[in-house]
Structure formats: C-alpha cells, structure tokens
C-alpha cells in the first residue's frame, strides 16, 4: 500500500487490493499532509454519526406539532428553537441530515458507476464511439446542475428515487470525462499493449488493468460532486421540489423558515448553516484529496 497513487502497472495483487490500495493511499496522504482535509473529514464523519443516531438522540419527534410552542427562540428546552408549527428545529435538523446524506451518497454512487463505465468505454475504444458519446456528455455538462435538476424533477415528480436519479444524471458527464482522459493515455501504455498481445479480452483489460489506475481521480471527483449533490438537493427542496413535507429536509426547512423570516430568523438560519457546513466539509475533503494526488503539486509542496 506504498506509493499506490502513481500510475504504475498493476503488480501481482488482486484488483480489489489495488483498488483499495489506491483509495487508501490517496486518502492517507491527504489526511497527513493537509490539515483542512482532516478538519473536513472530522466534520463529515460527525454529521454521518449524528444522522445515523438521529432517532436515538433527537430530543423530540421531528414531525410532532405543538402549535402553542411555535416560533420560540433557542432555549434549554429547544436548543435551536421551534418552527412555525412548534416542531423542535434541532430534532428536525438531525433527521434531515439523513436525507441530505442519503440522497448525496446514493446519487453520486450511481453517477460514479454509470459515468465511469461510459468514460471507460469511450476512452478505450476511441474513434467514432468516443466522439458520439462525449458530444452527448458535453451537451449535458453544458447545463447548470440546478437547472437540469429542476427540469428533471419537475417532469419525473418529486420522490426520493426521482431526486436521486435527477442529481445522478447531472453528474454522470463529469465522471465520464474524468474516467476517459486517463484511459486514453493508459490505452497506449506498455502494460495494456502487453495485455492485448497476450490475448486478454477488452473487458478484462478495461476492468483489471485500467480501472484501478483511475480510482484516485474518481474519488476526488466524487467528493467534490457530492458537495454539489447535497447543494442541489437542498436547492431543489428550497424551490419546492424536495421530498414532500412534513418529512424534514434541510432545504425544505429553509423554505418554511424563509416564508416567516420577518417573524423569526432562526427557523431559516439553522438549516441554512447545516447545509453550508456539510457542503464545506465535503469540499475541504475533495480539495485536499486533489492536492494529494496531483503530481504537479506534490513536487513543490
């Protein structure tokens, strides 16, 4: 698991070890070399733990309305106050984190799988296949994620699955591009040529010999795009294209709070900050990882 980030031919290790090795190598390097990545990772893991434990640690039921308690400021009973329906904001935030994380992780996982496959195929075969595929990807990529997300969710309907599909769709071209570029270089490398000379099938060369080499780039892209995915999900919910109320989502909470912002600012402010902190944590991770795998930066770091 030494310098696994350099683009070297796969040694005699199973491809799983190599994949894991590349991923771990880049991560460890980023964590040890870059304090911001460490901070980002700690914040992210904290949010994940809080989200998992939400049903156990949330002080109140996130959807139970107590109108008599409505629009209270922060207090000992309600640390972050209550919303328009008297619901506890902290409890709703904790539960809302589950949806932000779930949609972010699911959509980017989907985009990574589909996008990498498309990029791998385009880069490996080249020629006309490459031109057609990448032209289509460019058209999709030209669209701002939010606009594309709005259109797709508007047409598909706002459900958890559809939101995940819509956000994944916006991110697919990015992964196709990031996977394609190194493949085009690797395709000409000796170890791939050797594989071809030995009569390996295209599939075997693509998955066993090329895929492990592009893992670090994909991980960086995944963390940066997950930040975008979380932001897009929150933005969609803010516009009114989120999971239907009373389910707590951060974007939806901001939307409700914003409608009554002149009465109480805390209802809109706290979920806004929650989105900001999660997206920032993901960007810090992605930024540090990118520095860690960028050979140009590594030399004069």
């Amino acid at each position: 698991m030494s310098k696994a980030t350099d683009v070297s031919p796969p040694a005699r290790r199973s491809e799983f070890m190599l994949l894991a090795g590349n991923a771990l190598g880049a991560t460890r390097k980023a964590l040890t070399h870059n304090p911001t990545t460490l901070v980002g990772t700690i914040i992210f893991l904290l949010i994940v733990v809080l989200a998992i434990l939400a049903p156990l640690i949330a002080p109140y039921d996130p959807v139970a309305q107590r109108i008599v308690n409505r629009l209270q400021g922060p207090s000992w009973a309600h640390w972050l106050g209550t919303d328009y329906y008297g619901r506890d904001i902290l409890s709703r935030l904790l539960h809302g984190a589950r949806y932000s994380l779930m949609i972010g992780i699911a959509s980017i996982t989907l985009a990574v799988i589909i996008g990498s496959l498309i990029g791998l195929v385009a880069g490996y075969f080249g020629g006309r296949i490459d031109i057609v595929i990448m032209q289509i990807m460019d058209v999709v990529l030209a669209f701002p994620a939010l606009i594309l997300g709005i259109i797709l969710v508007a047409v598909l309907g706002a459900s958890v699955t559809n939101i995940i599909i819509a956000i994944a769709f916006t991110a697919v071209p990015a992964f196709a591009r990031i996977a394609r570029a190194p493949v085009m270089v690797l395709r000409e490398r000796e170890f791939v040529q050797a594989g071809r000379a030995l009569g390996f099938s295209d599939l075997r060369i693509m998955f066993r010999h090329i895929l492990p080499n592009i893992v670090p780039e994909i991980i960086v892209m995944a963390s940066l795009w997950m930040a975008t995915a979380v932001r897009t999900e929150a933005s969609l919910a803010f516009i009114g294209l989120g999971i239907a109320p009373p389910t707590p989502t951060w974007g939806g909470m901001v939307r409700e709070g914003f409608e009554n912002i002149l009465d109480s600012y805390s209802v809109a402010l706290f979920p806004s900050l929650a989105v900001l902190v999660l997206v920032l944590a993901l960007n810090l991770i992605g930024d540090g990882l990118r520095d860690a795998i960028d050979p140009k930066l590594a030399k004069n770091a």
Partner: protein
Amino acid sequence: MLGFVLRRLGFAVVTLFAVLTLVFFVIRVLPGDPTVVILGDQASAQSIALLRERIGLDRPIWLQYVQFLGGALRGDWGTSLVSGRPVIGEILNVLPHTLELTAFALVLGVAMGLPAGIWAAVNRNRIPDYVTRIVSLLGLSAPAFVSGIVLLLVFAIVLRWFPVISSGQSTDLWGKLRDLTLPALNLALIMAAYVTRVTRSSMLEVLSQDYVRTAMAKGASGTAVVLRHALRNCLIPVVTVVGLYLGILIGNSVLTEIVFNRPGLGKLIVGALNQRDYTMLQGMMVIYTLIVVLVNLATDLVYGLVDPRVQYK
C-alpha cells in the same frame, strides 16, 4: 477564423436541435397525461377532449413534433396554459431582469476574484493565501439561497440598508442600483470564489515560468512583473472558468430571484412548476438551452482575444 466560428455555430445548432427533440419527447413520453394534470382527475371526458384539441394533443405525434420544431424556430412557443398569453412574450418580459442581474454579478465577481487570486498567489503559503482559500471555499460551498438569506438578514432586516423586496421596477438609476446590489452581490460572491481559485493556481503556474524569472533577473519590480508579464498570461484559464460558471450563475440566479423576490426567469420557472404550466416549462427549457449554447460559443471566441496563440482551426 470564419471556419471556426461556422463550425462552433453548427455545433450550437445541433445541440439546440437535440435538446428541443429531447424536451418534446420527454414531456410526451413520460407517464402522466398533461390534460389530467392540468384539469385534475375529476375533469369530464368532454373537457379533456376539448383541451387535447386546443393544445394539439389529438394530432399524430410526428405532426406535433414538426409543428413544435417549426413553431420553436419561428418564435411561436405556444401559449401559457395558465395565463393564455404567448410563452415567448412572457419570457422576453422577464429576461432583461435576469440578464441584468447576471451581467452585473459577473463584472462584480471578476472584479473581486481576480485581485484576490493574484494576492493569494504572490503570498503563497502565507496568511493572505490561507484567508482567501478559506473564504473562497466558503463562497463555493454556500448554496445561493443560503448566502442570499444571510445577506438579506444582515443588510436588509438588521441593518436596513436595502429593501427586503427588490421589485426590479425602479426606473431611475439610484433605485435600480438599490434593487440590484444585494442580489447581484449574492451571485457575485459565488463567481468570485471560483475566479479567485483559478486565478491563484493559474498565476502560480505562470510565475514559475522562465520568462518571469528573466523579467525578475533584469531587475523589474515584482509588481511590474505580475501586472505586465504574468497577468495576461494567467487569464486564459480564468476566461474558461468564467465561461463555464456563467451557467452556474444562471442556475443560481433562480435561487437568488426567489430569495430577493425579483422578477426574472427564476420566478417564472417556479411559477410554471407550481401551476403545472407545461407549455411554459417547455419554453423555459428552450430559453435556458439557448442561453447555455450562446455562452459556450462566446467563451470559445473570447479565448482568441486573450490568447493570440489560439488558432481557430
């Protein structure tokens, strides 16, 4: 040069055509009868048939497609299902508000981001570098509605410097500026964050070049080298990023217009969504595609202005 422009134009036309086709089929092929959505599931068979005839759903699909394309090209994008007015008229009514907002934000964003990026690069790994890095990461992490709400809370509700609702209706320059400042600043902050980051890395790259060392060696002052020799050369990636993120600016303008209650494409699309105004949504998709395609075309052409080495092949 002419060949290059024509080819890019050709690509733009193909893109537009592809998206129009996609829009047409996506709206028609997906489950859910638009007439039921518009009239509700209690509607009588007769009123559904009438509506189908009115919006042309009773004709064969290929005829609908040809008519849709022909209409889109002639500027006839149908009439809004809600207001009954032509879609293109409604869009053109609010388009100037969105363009005004994004143009102002673009200028403001570059004006903030470029100096910040240069400042960070020349002070690499010192305090200014860390400060700009954190601030720009914050800027590109904040969804536009979050930064918008924070700006609104601080400057309009607590400090009362600006109106809470910027109507966009003011006709005099001062009123226009008052309406525009907060929303444009909100968009500009995000733009500035991207511009700062790319300027910093581009400037660092340029500063390590031989000709910069030569300029230093011949005794030119640091400021002169940065501004006279390095700045122009570091601009190419910046132009790319500005072009790329103009799209993001357009996307974020939707959120900004909602937060600051400004008229524009954003409020129009949200209204169309809430009222299930399908013809309006279709028109919005066309206009957004048009904007995206034109921005990409403009970005390609601007390269030549900042980098004479670019060959328009």
